[in-house]
């Protein structure tokens, strides 16, 4: 249903795609954030390239439609440009864990105050179903008809190791839960990432599996070690929720203190005065 966060762009996702769940969850999150004092003008979005990227066209929010694998780097620039903004990078698994993986690792390492929402469907769906960094071993697609021989990446364990201060996993089929995770991630000061299990109805339909296997984490692990253990857990259940959250110094404050290049910009007259002094 069109609403005040929708655009006039025609939605071209496949009917039933997990991306619809992510879009709904994000709209709910944006409204909850408004209730908590973050207005839409201060919520800025960015996307990469792939099926997920179209979310940019469907959300009536400010932002930038970035390159494949680069949305995480782009929002770091936005945050430095105006630290008052809440910046959100949407990415696919190919974006975040393939072509843009170095940006993920460095954003986590420096604890950049950004949020990355990864639409993780374990396939390159826009180019019609090739294997991706999170495809299961044995995944068959048009680029590997005999199946992949590679183990998939474990993005949560990787992000923990890289130093991310907020790590969560959501499921596109559990919209309210996902929406709450998004709110927490965006409010978290520091690098937050949500790996969203996103069924692709055409190329990697995981609805049945995740409807049966996902289980909300009762309590966020208390230690880093417990979080790692949970992230590497290969039990029958697939835990969703917050895996790890810790308060750490954030990059822009370490770099610039409380200075904001937009708010604290020297007025034109003062700049002219300074130039005259130098001359």
């Amino acid at each position, binding site marked *: 249903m069109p609403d005040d966060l929708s655009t006039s762009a025609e939605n071209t996702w496949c009917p039933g795609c997990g991306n619809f769940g992510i879009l709904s969850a994000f709209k709910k999150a944006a409204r909850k954030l408004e209730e908590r004092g973050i207005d839409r003008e201060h919520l800025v979005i960015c996307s990469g*390239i792939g099926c997920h990227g179209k979310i940019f066209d469907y959300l009536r929010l400010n932002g930038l*439609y970035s*390159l*494949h*694998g680069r949305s995480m780097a782009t929002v770091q620039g936005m945050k430095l440009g105006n630290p008052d903004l809440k910046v959100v990078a949407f990415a696919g698994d190919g974006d975040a864990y*393939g*072509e843009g*993986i170095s940006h993920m690792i460095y954003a986590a390492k420096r604890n950049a105050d950004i949020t990355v929402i990864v639409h993780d469907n374990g396939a*390159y769906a*826009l*180019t*019609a179903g*090739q*294997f991706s*960094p999170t495809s299961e071993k044995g995944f068959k697609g*048009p*680029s*590997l*008809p*005999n199946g*992949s021989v590679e183990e998939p990446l474990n993005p949560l364990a990787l992000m923990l190791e890289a130093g991310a201060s907020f790590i969560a996993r959501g499921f596109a089929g559990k919209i309210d839960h996902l929406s709450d995770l998004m709110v927490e991630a965006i409010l978290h000061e520091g690098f937050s990432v949500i790996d969203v299990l996103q069924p692709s109805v055409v190329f990697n339909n995981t609805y049945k599996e995740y409807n049966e296997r996902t289980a909300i984490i009762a309590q966020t692990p208390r230690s880093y070690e417990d979080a790692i253990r949970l992230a590497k857990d290969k039990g029958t259940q697939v835990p969703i929720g917050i895996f790890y959250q810790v308060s750490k110094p954030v990059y822009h404050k370490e770099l610039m203190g409380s200075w904001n290049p937009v708010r604290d910009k020297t007025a034109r007259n003062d700049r002219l005065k300074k130039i005259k002094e130098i001359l």
Partner: protein
Amino acid sequence: MSIVIDTGNRIAAKAAIMAKPDVVAAYPITPQTTLVEAIAEYYAKKEFTGEYICVESEHSAMSACIGASAAGSRTFTATSSHGLLLMHEMLHWAALARLPVVMCNINRVIGPGWNIWVDENDSISQRDTGWIQFYCSSNQEIYDTVIQAFKIAEHANILLPVMVNLNAFILSHTSMPAEIPEQRTVDDFLGPYIPGWKLDIENPVTFGNIIGPDSYIKVRYAMQQAQMQAKQLIPQVAKEWKKHSGFFHGDLIEYFECEDAEYILLAMGAIGAESKIAIKELRSKGHKVGLARVRVFRPFPTEDIIALGKQAQLIVIDRNISVGNEGALFTETKAAVSGIPETSVQGYIAGLGGKDVTYQDIETMVEKAMTGKAAHQLWYGVEEDR
């Protein structure tokens, strides 16, 4: 020999596997995807027995090809648009290290705004990397050119990577008939790749060492000499291919109705093919016009264009723009004929972003240029009435 009806991408894949590369490394991007998927299909059916790797980015794809080529393997990859741009530094690397990698590039628009249709800014913006560049206009030409590309790239006097360009969708996804020779014919024509030097534990060599200015300038000079030699070699290789297969695609320029032409149109890629219909129409109206379809942009066919400039007034259509100056073919054509008095070169920018360029459009452009209205290169469909 068999006649198949298939898309440009699948014909390119067929040619690539018939050249029997040892290594193919690629990353998916629209509209290249179906080319690599066809190779994957041949690999799965064991009709292609080389190594085939799906990597994590185009930069990695070209890096893998460079490594494989340095180890003495025949290598192939394919990409498009932003994928080609992400390869940029490795394109220079492959050329400077004199590694005969062959690549198909599906000409697609560069974003933003995002658009998957055809223009040639992707490959034109890579023209100074040292790669030999072909622009095809039919699926048969794609087949013949990919096969010949390996022969040219691996020739002892050349040893440069070769990029075979085909226009997005107009060629990549359009089915046309193409004659495919027997595997034996391709084997006899190409033979195995025997590198002059390679990474070999029995006879160690290194690639990419630090060299000082005195040597570096010689490296560039040697590349330039190889490109200049390619101008002679490309038609020779095509003649040889004709002896083996019976098909010919090979001159730097394809000429059409140029013998008595007073105006000659220059264009590349699919616009070059569409222009033939326009030329026939214009001839039927009594205009003495011909077409010079530029197949090879690097090395640039300067001598052939000088000959055209001595014969006729030239009209250029570019599906690319060097922003701040002009379309690349227009600029380079003017430079080639700059010493010939009385020759005029007029030009158009057309078809950017995949905007259709029909034979009627081409007729309109040529007729307008015949009145001298396109001397400063007009943007067709944008400012044609200026």
